[in-house]
Each structure stands twice: as C-alpha cells, then as structure tokens.
C-alpha cells in the first residue's frame, strides 16, 4: 500500500465516521489529519483531490453536476498549490539566511564587542542588545596607561548593513594612532575615515570619552549622538551630558569641541544610544525623564545590575519587541 493509498484510506475512514455521527471528536481528528498532510508536505490541491476520490467511493451515484463541480474546485485550488510550494522553498531559504545571520551575529558578538574592563576606581555596567539579530550599536573600552577610554556609536540604520558598517568602525578605531586619548581628535580622525569609506547615505553618531583617574576628569566629545546623563551625587541630581557636534561622515573637515567634567565620588556617567530614550510603548515614546526615573530606582545597585534592570523594564514596556538597538553604559566613581 503506498503512502497515498494509506492517506486515502484514513481520510475515507474519518469522513465515513463523521457522516454517521457528526461529532466534534471526528472533526478534531480531521484537523489532526490535515496537520499530518502538512508534515508530509502534501499540497492543498492534493487534499481536494483526496476528498474527491473518497466522495467517488462513498457516493457512486453522485449526480454528474455534483461531480463536475468538484473538478472546478480542484482547478481553482491549483493556484494555492503554487503558494504552498513557494512557502516551502521560502522557508528553506529563510532558515538558511537566518542561520547565516546567527553565525554572523555571534562573530559580531565575540569579535567586535569588547569585554568590560576591570578598573579600580570605576564600577562599570554595560548592556547592548540588538533589535534584530545583528547589532548596529557599537561600544568599546580601551585601557591605555592609567586612563580608560569609552566609545558608544550608533549606525543610522539597522540590521546587516549597519553591522557591516560597524565592523568598519571597529577596524578603523583599532588602526588609529595613539592620540586616541583626546576624544575630539579621535572623532575628527574617525570622521575622515567614515567620510572616505562609507556610503554617503550611511551616518554614524558617536560619543567618545576618556576618564583620567589622577585628575578625576572625564574628557569627552560627541558627533550627533544622543546625549547621556551625568549624575551629580552631592546634589543628588541628574543632568544631560551634552556634547555637540556633527554626525560622522557628513563633511571631511568637521571639527569637534572638547568637553570636560570633574567626577566626584558617587557620581555617574551614563552613556546610551537613542534606542534607550526612543523606546516606543503603546502609549507613545517614553520620555528621557522616565529613563532617569528608572535609573534612580535601581541606583543603589552595582552598575551592571542597574543597566540590566533598566533594560528589562524597558523591554517589557515595549512588549519584548525592541524597535532599535539598545545600548546603555554606566560608569560610577567608587573612590
């Protein structure tokens, strides 16, 4: 008995039972049968054909018109066979693409994102979660001498192109000369690289800062990046950490303004991407104040716990569907 004969016999059994007593149980079995058909990749027009054959057997005296009407239904169902086969092929393709993206994303994770460095004077916390598989946000920590440099960048755009662009930023930063420790100069350098190498419809926003433990000064500069926050412990107040400057890649000759700030014990520098402040909930975009309120709520925890808790709350608010890559970094001065 071929697989097809077996299916026909099963369908005939089910249909006969149903016609004798129209029970919900038999309909449930019919539904499970159709699930089996799908597993065996049987096309919808085959199901109609199965039905017709079984009807021929159960009702040998069916009127000719009735019989003919089935042929017309069959003919009309063929188009759905196309769609069904296309679905199978799309599914295979999609699975392959997704496993590729999975691999690329894990490459990105291990290669491009730096570990959080151990740094005596600062308690550091980081979360960076892509909206899709590939991250278009970038962050980087570099210890150089006694100083700690921190970068956050956001490629305008998401997904694969942004990831490709981000890998460029990573290698460009790696090959920059050592004046890295001056944020505004680093941005000027990087701006030239981006302007030269990146497509003119791709832009990158970036914040770069350097903490010098001797002077307790934080030097920073920004290229069109979402402002971070500065928490002043003495006043128990949050302020915006503004660093004005053009996004990277617009003009070769852009210069950036150097900023600096004293960091006292208990102060926090909070860096982020616009995926944090532009969380979209069912009630509209959240306000920057709400992010501050969340940080305040968890402020007494270690930095890593703060950023994780803030992420979890904002993720939930958005129904677990991030609209944009989400990066949040907190540096808290311990001593």
């Amino acid at each position: 008995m071929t697989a097809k004969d077996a299916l026909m016999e099963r369908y005939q059994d089910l249909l006969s039972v149903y016609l004798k007593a129209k029970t919900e149980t038999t309909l449930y079995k019919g539904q499970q049968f159709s699930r089996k058909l799908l597993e065996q990749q049987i096309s919808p027009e085959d199901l109609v054909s199965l039905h017709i054959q079984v009807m021929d057997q159960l009702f040998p005296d069916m009127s000719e018109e009735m019989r003919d009407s089935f042929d017309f239904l069959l003919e009309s169902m063929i188009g759905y066979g196309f769609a069904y086969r296309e679905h199978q092929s799309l599914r295979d393709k999609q699975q392959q693409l997704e496993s590729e993206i999975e691999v690329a994303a894990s490459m990105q994770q291990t290669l491009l994102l730096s570990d959080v460095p151990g740094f005596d004077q600062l308690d550091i916390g980081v979360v960076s979660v892509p909206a899709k598989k590939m991250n278009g946000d970038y962050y980087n920590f570099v210890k150089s001498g006694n100083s700690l440099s921190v970068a956050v960048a956001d490629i305008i755009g998401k997904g694969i192109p942004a990831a490709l662009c981000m890998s460029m930023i990573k290698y460009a930063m790696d090959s920059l000369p050592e004046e890295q420790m001056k944020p505004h100069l680093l941005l000027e350098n990087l701006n030239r690289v981006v302007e030269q190498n990146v497509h003119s419809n791709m832009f990158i926003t970036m914040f770069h800062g350097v903490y010098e433990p001797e002077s307790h000064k934080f030097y920073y500069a920004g290229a069109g990046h979402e402002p971070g926050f500065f928490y002043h412990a003495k006043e128990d107040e949050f302020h915006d950490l503004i660093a004005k400057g053009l996004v990277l890649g617009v003009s070769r000759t852009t210069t950036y303004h150097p900023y600096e700030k004293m960091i006292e014990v208990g102060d926090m520098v909070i860096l982020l991407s616009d995926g944090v402040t532009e969380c979209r909930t069912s009630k509209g975009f959240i306000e920057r104040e709400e992010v501050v309120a969340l940080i305040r709520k968890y402020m007494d925890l270690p930095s890593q716990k703060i950023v994780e808790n803030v992420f979890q709350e904002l993720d939930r608010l958005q129904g677990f569907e991030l609209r944009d890559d989400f990066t949040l970094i907190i540096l808290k001065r311990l001593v």
Partner: protein
Amino acid sequence: MDIQSCVEVRNEWDIVSARQLGRNMAKELGFGSVDQARITTAISELARNIYLYAGRGKICIEPIDQLGRKGLRIVALDNGPGIREIRKVMEDGYTTSGGLGAGLPGVKRLMDEFSIESTVDVGTEISATKWLR
C-alpha cells in the same frame, strides 16, 4: 455580558470538549462555518499547549459585546512553568513543519486580537478574540 464557560484541560479528550464548547458558542453568536472552524482550531492549539506544556489548566470561552460590537473571546489559563522567552515563542517559527502545529503565532493570525502574559513558575494567560463581521 458575563457568561463565561470553562473547560478543565487535563487530557486529550478535554481538548475536544473545549472545541465543542467554542463551536457551540460561535454558532450561537452567528459566526459562519469558516470562522467556526478557525475558532475551534485556535482552541485546539491553545488547549494542546496546556496539555503538552503545563499538564493542566483551563480554557474559558465568553461572548463579548463592546459598544454593540460582538465577538467571542478564548482565554487559556494555566499554572504551569510559564514561558521564559515570550519573544522567541512569538517569533514566526516554521510552525507548519515538523508537526508542531500552528503554535502561538498561528493562533494569533487566526484570531483578530491576541495577548499573552506569562510569569516563570507562576503560569500563563493567553487571551484571543474574534469579532463578528
């Protein structure tokens, strides 16, 4: 209106009872035969999920009337392990392959409204609505 009827789901036959309940109410409310079949299929999937992953739970069906707009709501409740990764579960899987059935994204598509709340180790509540057109 507040006439809610529930079926306990503990074994596979309870799935059939839940379907029957849903179909009767759908018929009463005036849903056509395709929508009846869709609603019972959605109930099947939700009940199967309870039976397979939570062990036991219940399916409640209620007619709804919001400012004259009529419909039917299915609520699936369990105190099972909960869903750790709602994001993953709601991702469009390859639900029609491998005999996994329609899964939750399939149920979401069969119905007009869908919501899910789940807490790990506490349980899951899924609610799905179909409006009468």
